[in-house]
């Protein structure tokens, strides 16, 4: 099941082909290296644009949510066995 987290995180990554690709993030002071981005989705809450990155770090899927309007990052959820 996905466990809701909804915590602010710090993200570092690269811009490539006009898109940002996260490479690592910090949550609760701990650094997580991203091995793979398994899915990206453009989401909307009325007019607010958000981008969801589903990423793999040490075998766990994390859903990173980027609010494109106010440029903030959240860890929305993570997969727990």
């Amino acid at each position: 099941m996905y466990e809701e987290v909804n915590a602010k995180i710090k993200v570092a990554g690269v811009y490539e082909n006009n898109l940002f690709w996260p490479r690592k993030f910090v949550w609760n002071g701990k650094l997580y290296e991203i091995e793979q981005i398994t899915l990206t989705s453009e989401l909307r809450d009325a007019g607010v644009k958000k981008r969801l990155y589903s990423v793999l770090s040490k075998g766990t899927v994390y859903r990173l949510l980027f609010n494109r309007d106010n440029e903030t990052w959240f860890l929305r959820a993570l997969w727990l066995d």
Partner: protein
Amino acid sequence: MLQQENPDLRGKPVGVIKDKGRTCIIAASKEAKKLGVKTGCNVKEAKILAPHIILVPAEFDIYLDATKKLKKIFENITPDAEIFSLDEAFIPLKTLKYIYPNPHKLAIKTKLTIKEVLGEWITCNIGIAKNRLLAKIASEIAPKDSIFEINEQNEEEILKTVNFSDVCGVGFKLEARLKELGVEHPYQIRTIPTDLLETKFGLFLAEALIQIGRGEGSYILDRSSAAHMKSVSRTITLFKLCGNETQIKSVLYNLAEEVTYKVRRMDMAGRQVGFFLQGEEKTISAHRTLKQYIRHTNEMVEIIEDLYKNRKRTFRVIKFGVFLSYLKPLKEVPPTLFSEWYKNEKLYKSLDAISQKYGLFTVRSGLLTQVKDIIRPEVTGYLGDKKYQFMEE
């Protein structure tokens, strides 16, 4: 999509439920299907069939984004491509035979593009045929992730053998009524006299069934003709029965808020309002057709409250629904003389501007302050509101 997103789920039986705690399987992975888990199956039943099934809540936002990406792929082939539901589309090629002389090659290329855009784990069935009805049947009966063509050689055989569950527009109830006539496959409809079909099913449905029996395109598959949406509705099933009057009113308000927001976003107004409540095997419903057009939440809620107070509810409610129909583009609606309407319009324009900038329900009615979880918009598999969902693309 969920298996694409999460490698942990790949190759395993997965059942998609609407939300945590829900008991109905709304989609199943191929591994779960192999074990007998079907859409509509109860979670308990699914766990007996597939004890290791992994239950995952649906992510409608993710599915809608995938549909929007698919729409772009298909519209690159032809601007006439039509998204039919959340995961189905029709790509008419009749007028493009010089550009795409070989539909099979196009199908293979399209499958590759879909994998490139959505991910390597995404599967796609493509049906090729002379019309929508047969193309849809072809995609249903094709083995998972493959291309299947219905042509002159195999058409009759398929119509003689295909089950109605693979024929779009024929649901369980219609299938059962056809069975009463001894009809279990589309081809058998040809053996039933037209007047009997008309008596049993009515003129329109009889005509559609005759077309299905002949393997001809049916109006059931034509959802593109309307220039705009005729109605916006919203339903919700709660987790448990609710008898609290304030909560019932809050839910109705919440749903009406979403409906009127969508109507305003589409620059429309409607003049028929209705609602229904279901629970404990009982239903109450009512609607009212108005002389004037409305599009503001307070107007809609006022009418629902009035309709509701005239119905005596004797049961606890689990399912709620509201609708605003007889929709028309606002520019075609005769201007009203009531100054109240213009005040409302100004107010809701401001509220909508806030919603656009900060998200829906950022500003909400006092009636919704007691609601623990606001009911937010979500798409359905049928994608009945696609004109709204695609309007900003």
